[in-house]
C-alpha cells in the first residue's frame, strides 16, 4: 500500500514537471503562440484574430505567467492534452496509434535482452573470476560503451548495407523487428548480465547458499531453489530503473529506423515545436515508467516478504 502511495506521488510529480517544462516551452515559442494553437485546432484556413484571441483568453497566454500556468496544469491533470499543432488531431488519439508500435518494439527488445543477459550473468556469477566471468566482463564493458544509435548504425552497416541481409527501415513484417530490437537489446543485455552476475556472486557468497549445499543439496538444486529467486529481486528492481534507458533507446532507435512509434513522434513533435504532442508523449513515457516500477514493486514484494514490511 505504502509503495503505491509513493508511486502515486511520483506520478503526480512527473505530471507537474512535464507540465512546467512544456509550459516553458510554449512560452518560449517564437511568434504568436495563440495563433499557432488556434491554427492547430481549426486549421490554418479558418483562423482569424478572433479565434486566436479566444485561445489566448482560454489559456491565459497573454496574461501573467502564474494563472496561465495553473490553467495549463489543470488541463494536463484532467488529461486534456488538446490537439496537435501539426495534424490537428487530438493528441490522445495520435498517441493511441503510436503506442502499440513502440510497445511491440520495446517488448521484443526486452525479451531478447532477458534471453541473452541474465543467464550468462548468472553462469558467470557462479564462478567469479572464472573464464566466462572475465570474457563477459570485457564484452559487457565494450557493449556498454556503445550508445544505442551507434549500435543501430553499426548493425545497419554490417547487416543491411554490407551484407544486405535485413532491411534498414520499414515496419510491418517480422524481419523489420530484427535490427531495431537488436540495437536496443544488446546494450540492455550487457547491463542485465552485469547485474545478474554481481547479484549471483554476492548471493553465492552468502552463508545460506553454502548452508543449502551443506544440507546435501546438489549445486543445481541449490541454484534452482535458493539462487534464482534471490537473484531475481535485485534484477527486477534494476530492470525497473533500466526502463528509462529503454525508453531513451526507443526514442533514438525509432528515429533512426523510422519506426512509427511514440519516440519517433516525440522527435518530430520537438522538431516542429508541436507542444501539445510533446506534452502528451512525454507524460505517456513518464507515467509508463511509474507504472512499470509500481508493478515491479508489487512483484518483488511478493517474492521478498521483507520488502513489504
Amino acid at each position, binding site marked *: 500500500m505504502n509503495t503505491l502511495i509513493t508511486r502515486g506521488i511520483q506520478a503526480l510529480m512527473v505530471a507537474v514537471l512535464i507540465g512546467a517544462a512544456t509550459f516553458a516551452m510554449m512560452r518560449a515559442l517564437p511568434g504568436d503562440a495563440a495563433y499557432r494553437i488556434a491554427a492547430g485546432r481549426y486549421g490554418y484556413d479558418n483562423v482569424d484574430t478572433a479565434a486566436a484571441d479566444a485561445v489566448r483568453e482560454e489559456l491565459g497566454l497573454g496574461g501573467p505567467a502564474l494563472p496561465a500556468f495553473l490553467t495549463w496544469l489543470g488541463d494536463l491533470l484532467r488529461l486534456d492534452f488538446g490537439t496537435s499543432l501539426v495534424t490537428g488531431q487530438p493528441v490522445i488519439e495520435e498517441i493511441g496509434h503510436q503506442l502499440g508500435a513502440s510497445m511491440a518494439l520495446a517488448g521484443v527488445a526486452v525479451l531478447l535482452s532477458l534471453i541473452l543477459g541474465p543467464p550468462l550473468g548468472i553462469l558467470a556469477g557462479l564462478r567469479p573470476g572464472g573464464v566466462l566471468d572475465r570474457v563477459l566482463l570485457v564484452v559487457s564493458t565494450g557493449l556498454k560503451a556503445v550508445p544505442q544509435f551507434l549500435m543501430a548504425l553499426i548493425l545497419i552497416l554490417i547487416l543491411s548495407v554490407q551484407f544486405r541481409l535485413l532491411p534498414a527501415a520499414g515496419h510491418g513484417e517480422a524481419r523489420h523487428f530484427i535490427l531495431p530490437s537488436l540495437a536496443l537489446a544488446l546494450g540492455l543485455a550487457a547491463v542485465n548480465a552485469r547485474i545478474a552476475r554481481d547479484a549471483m556472486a554476492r548471493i553465492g557468497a*552468502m*552463508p*545460506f547458499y*553454502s*548452508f*543449502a*549445499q*551443506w*544440507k*546435501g*543439496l546438489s549445486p543445481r*538444486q541449490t541454484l534452482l*531453489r*535458493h539462487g534464482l*529467486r*534471490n537473484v531475481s*529481486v535485485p534484477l527486477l528492481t534494476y530492470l525497473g530503473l533500466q526502463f528509462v534507458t529503454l525508453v531513451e533507446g526507443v526514442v533514438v532507435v525509432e528515429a533512426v529506423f523510422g519506426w512509427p512509434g511514440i519516440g519517433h513522434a516525440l522527435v518530430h513533435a520537438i522538431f516542429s515545436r508541436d507542444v501539445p504532442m510533446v506534452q502528451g508523449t512525454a507524460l505517456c513515457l513518464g507515467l509508463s515508467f511509474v507504472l512499470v516500477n509500481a508493478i515491479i514493486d508489487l512483484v518483488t514484494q511478493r*517474492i*521478498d*516478504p*521483507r520488502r513489504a514490511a
Partner: protein
Amino acid sequence: MSLLKAEDITVSQGDTPILHPVSLHLEPGEPLVILGETGSGKSLLAQAIMGTLPRDLAARGRVALGDRLLDAARPDGFRPLWGRQIAVLPQEPWLSLDPLMQAERQVTETHRLVRGLGTTEARVQAAADFDHLGLTGAGHRYPHELSGGMAQRAAIAAARAGGARIVIADEPTKGLDAARRDEVADLLLAELARGGGLLVITHDLALARRVGGRMIVLREGRVVETGPTKTVMDAPTQTYTRDLIAADPDNWAARDRQTAGAPVLTATGLAADRGGAQLFSDLSFDLAEGRILGVTGPSGCGKSTLGDVVLGLVPPSAGRVKRSEGLAPTAFQKLYQDPVAAFPRHRTLKGTLEDVARRHGQTQDRIDALMHRLGLAPVLLLRKPDAVSGGELQRLALLRLLLVRPKFIFADEPTSRLDPITQKHVIDLLCETAATEGCAIMLISHDPALVARTADQMLSLDPAAPNLDVTPTRVAGALQ
C-alpha cells in the same frame, strides 16, 4: 570403531603453512571440542575435514569416515557426504536460512531431496521436526520473522534432515547470550544421545565445559594440548591453556569494591521503547566517580538503548538523566562494541588522536603517556583503524576518550568481539581507568560472570515476559 578419523590434516596458503598436522578421531556418543582463539586455525581444521575450504587454501591429510577413505587435498570427494554423513551447523543461523523461503520448507526440501522421502512424507516429517524443537506453528514464518533462538533450531532441523550421524558445529554460540548458549549446548548433546558423533569448534570456555567429552586446544595452527575436556580445564598442563582458562570471566577474581567519589549523574524513572514495544521502565540509579555500574540482560532487552539514553543520544520516553553541575558537555563518552566502526576509517590513528588532543587542549605528551600506560606500541599510530587488531584498537579507543578527560564512560559490550585473554586485559584497563581517572563507567555485557566480577553496582534488564522461546531443558527433553 571411530565414526570419523582424520590424520595429519594440514592447511596451507601457497607455501605458507597455516595449520600444522592435526589428527583427531570422533567416537559415537563422545563429543570432541576444538578450542582456540581467533586465528588458531580451528575453523580451518573443520573446513578441511568437511571439504569446504576457500579456494585459495589447500589441505592435505586423510579422512576416514566409516569404511570410506578420503583425501583432504581433493575436496570434491567430500561433497556426497554433506547432509548424508556429516551435518554442518552454521555459525550464524539467521544468515544460514534462505531469507525468501518459509522456514519449514527449508527442512522439507532436505527430507525430500537428500533423504529421498516423498513429498507428503517429507512435509509430515518436517512438521514433526518443528514440533519436537518447540517450533510448532512457526513453520510458515520467513527467517526474518523468527527470533535468533528459533532460527538456530530451524537451522539444526534443516542440517539434520538429511540423516547424517556426525554433527560439526563451528562456533555455534557466536553472538548468543548465556541463556541461549546453554540451550544450544543442550540441543547438541541431545543429538549426540542418538548415538552420533559431535565435533564442536569454539572459543567459548563455558560451551566447552558444558559439552564435555574430549578436547584439543589449538594456538596459531598448532596443537597445544589434548585430553578429556574436564581434565584439561581443571588441570591444564600448558601455560597457554592455563592463561586461556584464567581469562574466562568465570575464573576471574572479583574486583575490590570502590568507594564512591563525587556524584556524576542521577537517573530517575527512565523508560524507553522501540517500535511501540516498551524496552524497560521506571529505572532509577545514580553513579559516582570511580564506580562501575554493570548492566546485563538478554540480547534485545534494551541495554544499549539505556546507555544511549544516559548519554543523551536517545530521548527517554519517561524519566530524566541529571548530570552533575559543572561537567563539560563532552564529559560523557562511549566505548563501542566494534572499535573499527567507531573511528574515521580513512584517517590514520595518529591524525584522529591529534585532532582530539588539539580540540581539548591536550599535548602530544599526554598521548605518549597514555600509549605507554595502555601498553600500546607507538608504531600503531601510523596505521588506519582496520589495520590494527581488535584488542589494540579498543585500547586506542579508550585512549581517545581519556584525552577528553571524561567523567562518565558508557562501555557498550566493549569486549564481546575479543578473544578471552585480550578481553581480560581490556576489562582490567577499564577498571584501572575508573580508579585512576576518577570516572564512572556503565559496563554492558551479555556475560553475567564478567559483569558480576567487575561491577560495583548491578542492573538486570531481564524482561518479565520473554519471547516465544521455550527453556533449553524442555527442548532437550523433547528430543530424547
